[in-house]
């Protein structure tokens, strides 16, 4: 099968690149080995939350303080400013409604009652202008009886600290009784699959009765796995504003984001191959001719250009063997020390060096293989390395902007 571009990796990075290309009429395919890290999404996309341990208010300004190896510095501030305004409209076209701006961080609530900076946040969630002043005097925290992946007590402790009075409630509806019989399967995503029009109507009634004296209702994100219909329905039926708080994974809004992006890409004519793994490539000097996958071998899949968006260690974009860090698909050169002792620090809380490892790419994001630059492959997303997404709060921004950078003139 032949395509203009084949993207390896179907998470936020791969999907952004794919949509951007497919919108320009390119024949594009994604090959994805299983579902992506969007399934663990907090519901917010972060651009830049912290530099050298100091919180960031204006992400664009703070780019200058990042290390030169950081993908944002490599993309360049000017180019970043050109790409950033494209992001929210692209998400909206795919049906992913968000709030936020790249000039000033907004703030979101974590499941443990902390407040963290965010760039774009799904409309399911509450966001604030300031980390200290929240827009409520009192809120009702409503959990579903027996649901273990949500912690109202922590949440209320965090909120009370910021002067918000909390009342904790637990409710249940008949539609969920069936699930309650299995302790391991009473999960956010499973509930979302069961909650239909009728059930959401009943749930709305319960919320209305407990929340009479609160300014807002906070409840676990258990609605809307494939689209946001049920979220909108519930909000229409409840007299107070309802905001969701992310649960333990799998994240319902995260799965929905994945599905919406994927559906939009396929509607644009894109091919999404899920559950398939690229086993190797066939190179001709400095070009990748074909890739071979578990499902389509012995026939090759071919494209003029390839984008490698397989992520970092978690998604096997990089693999640590006992003696080396390797890129397992093509054997591209990796930018990481040979000495294993330099891969990690024993103090688990400190910034871990391995988080910043990535493919060695040139200025145009091409990888090298045995020292030869591969001209028709480019890398995007967390496989680039050069930053610490956990400490710096820049994972989603890196994914989205590095792929838009490759696919936008």
């Amino acid at each position: 099968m032949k395509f203009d571009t084949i993207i390896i990796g179907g998470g936020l990075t791969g999907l952004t690149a794919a949509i951007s290309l497919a919108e320009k009429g390119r024949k594009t395919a994604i090959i994805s080995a299983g579902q992506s890290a969007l399934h663990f999404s907090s519901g917010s996309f972060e651009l830049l939350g912290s530099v050298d341990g100091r919180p960031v208010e204006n992400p664009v300004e703070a780019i200058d303080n990042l290390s030169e190896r950081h993908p944002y510095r490599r993309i360049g501030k000017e180019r970043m400013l050109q790409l950033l305004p494209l992001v929210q409209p692209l998400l909206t076209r795919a049906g992913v409604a968000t709030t936020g701006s790249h000039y000033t961080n907004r703030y979101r609530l974590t499941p443990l009652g902390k407040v963290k900076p965010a760039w774009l946040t799904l409309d399911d969630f509450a966001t604030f202008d300031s980390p200290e002043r929240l827009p409520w005097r009192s809120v009702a925290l409503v959990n579903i009886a027996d649901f273990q992946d949500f912690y109202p007590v922590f949440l209320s402790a965090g909120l009370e600290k910021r002067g918000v009075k909390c009342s904790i409630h637990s409710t249940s509806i008949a539609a969920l009784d069936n699930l309650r019989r299995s302790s391991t399967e009473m999960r956010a995503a499973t509930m979302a699959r069961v909650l239909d029009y009728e059930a959401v109507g009943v749930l709305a009634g319960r919320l209305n009765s407990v929340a009479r004296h609160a300014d807002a209702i906070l409840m676990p994100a258990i609605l809307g796995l494939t689209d946001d219909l049920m979220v909108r329905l519930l909000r229409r039926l409840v007299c107070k504003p309802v905001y969701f708080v992310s649960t333990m994974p799998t994240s319902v809004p995260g799965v929905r984001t994945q599905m919406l992006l994927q559906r939009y890409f396929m509607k644009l004519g894109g091919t999404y191959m899920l559950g398939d793994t690229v086993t190797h490539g066939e190179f001709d000097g400095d070009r990748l001719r074909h890739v071979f996958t578990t499902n389509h071998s012995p026939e090759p899949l071919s494209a003029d250009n390839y984008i490698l968006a397989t992520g970092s260690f978690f998604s096997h974009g990089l693999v640590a063997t006992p003696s080396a860090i390797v890129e397992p698909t093509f054997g591209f050169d990796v930018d990481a020390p040979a000495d294993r002792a330099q891969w990690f620090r024993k103090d688990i809380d400190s910034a871990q060096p391995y988080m910043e490892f990535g493919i060695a790419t040139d200025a145009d994001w091409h990888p090298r293989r045995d020292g030869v630059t591969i001209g028709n492959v480019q890398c995007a997303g967390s496989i680039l390395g050069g930053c610490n997404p956990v400490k710096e709060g820049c994972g989603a921004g890196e994914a989205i902007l590095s792929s838009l950078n490759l696919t936008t003139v």
Partner: protein
Amino acid sequence: MSIQQFSNISSNNFEQCVKCTVCTVYCPVTAVNPLYPGPKQAGPDGERYRLKRSDFYNEALKYCLNCKRCEVACPSGVRIGDIIQQAHMNYSHGSAGVRDRMLAHTDLMGGIATRLSPTVNGILRLTPVKLAMDLTLGIDRHRTFPAYTPRKFTTWFRRHALKRQDRFTRRVTYFHGCYVNYNFPRLGKDLVKLLNACGIGVDLMKDEKCCGVARIANRLIKQATDAAKVNLREIRAAVASGNDVIATSSTCIMTMRDEYPHLLGLDNADVRDHIMTATRYLYRLVENGDIKLVFKPDYLRRIAYHTPCHMAKLGWSVYSIELLKLIPGVELSVLDVNCCGIAGTYGFKKENYRYSQAIGKTLFDSIAQVNPDIVATDCETCKWQIEMSIPYRVSNPISILADALDVEATRAANNI
């Protein structure tokens, strides 16, 4: 971590599970049946215990559809469905009863029924008979058995098609399967028409057995293995003569390519690449310019393509979709991947009927929303389930291609 630990991974990858729970999001059974522990629990989590003590085995594993949607979703390559099926085969104490045996022997039952088809079809539709089967055998009374044909596909082929095949030098071996042979010969005829128009001759196997999917699901492993050995012998013979082996059922293909080695322990590596669905075979020939398809300009249909679970596992729906897109008058919508709920013989069992319908609901709703002229899908049991549940007609992509084909123009384009 020791080096030994690093390389000591089972063939089904169960040690690779990172406990992310992604698989449970996509398991069709989890949301509807609280008795089922779900893929993570039934698969890699449970396996840890079962390896220690076999009495950790839980009979609720029988609710697994073996749809493999969990495997397609798993980011760590864990063969969850295989782990569950293997556990079911190795540890389950219950032996297959009359009902399971009857459902499992699709070929034997078909062989008897086609000979008696007018009677059998009538009997299977009678309400008292359905009630009796429900009460005595546990076959749900809401089910309609697919009608048996009075004349088997193989009989038709021998009488009306065999001779004509000699004219073609390029040839392919067709594994028709039980469904085409006993229930729906038309699909086989459509394939022969399509291939012959492109200048490809069709061979059948000398001795074709049921692929064995229903036997595996009903734990008749010895019988499944015996049949699989015969099929593999026939496949090897076909490949030796230069043929690929194709089928119009995605499940038969998935079973022969993957379940033979993974569940029955039969190595097929030498011929695996030659076993494929008819749409993959055709697509490759079209793409390489080896054959040309010409369609009637006045074949106008709105088609919704449903990806069968086993087609999703094979990763090959793209071939069916791309072929359907070649028909100029077709407006194609590709439905989100959702299980229809039947899973072969699973949905016929009384204890599963209501789960089966609850699983299918999302798919049925999405079809109704598109409201197509035809639903296209590569699996016969999906076809039964959809046609039993909602008023839409379901066709295999091969039948749609054959219907839309301008036979004369195609023959001319291929110099026949």
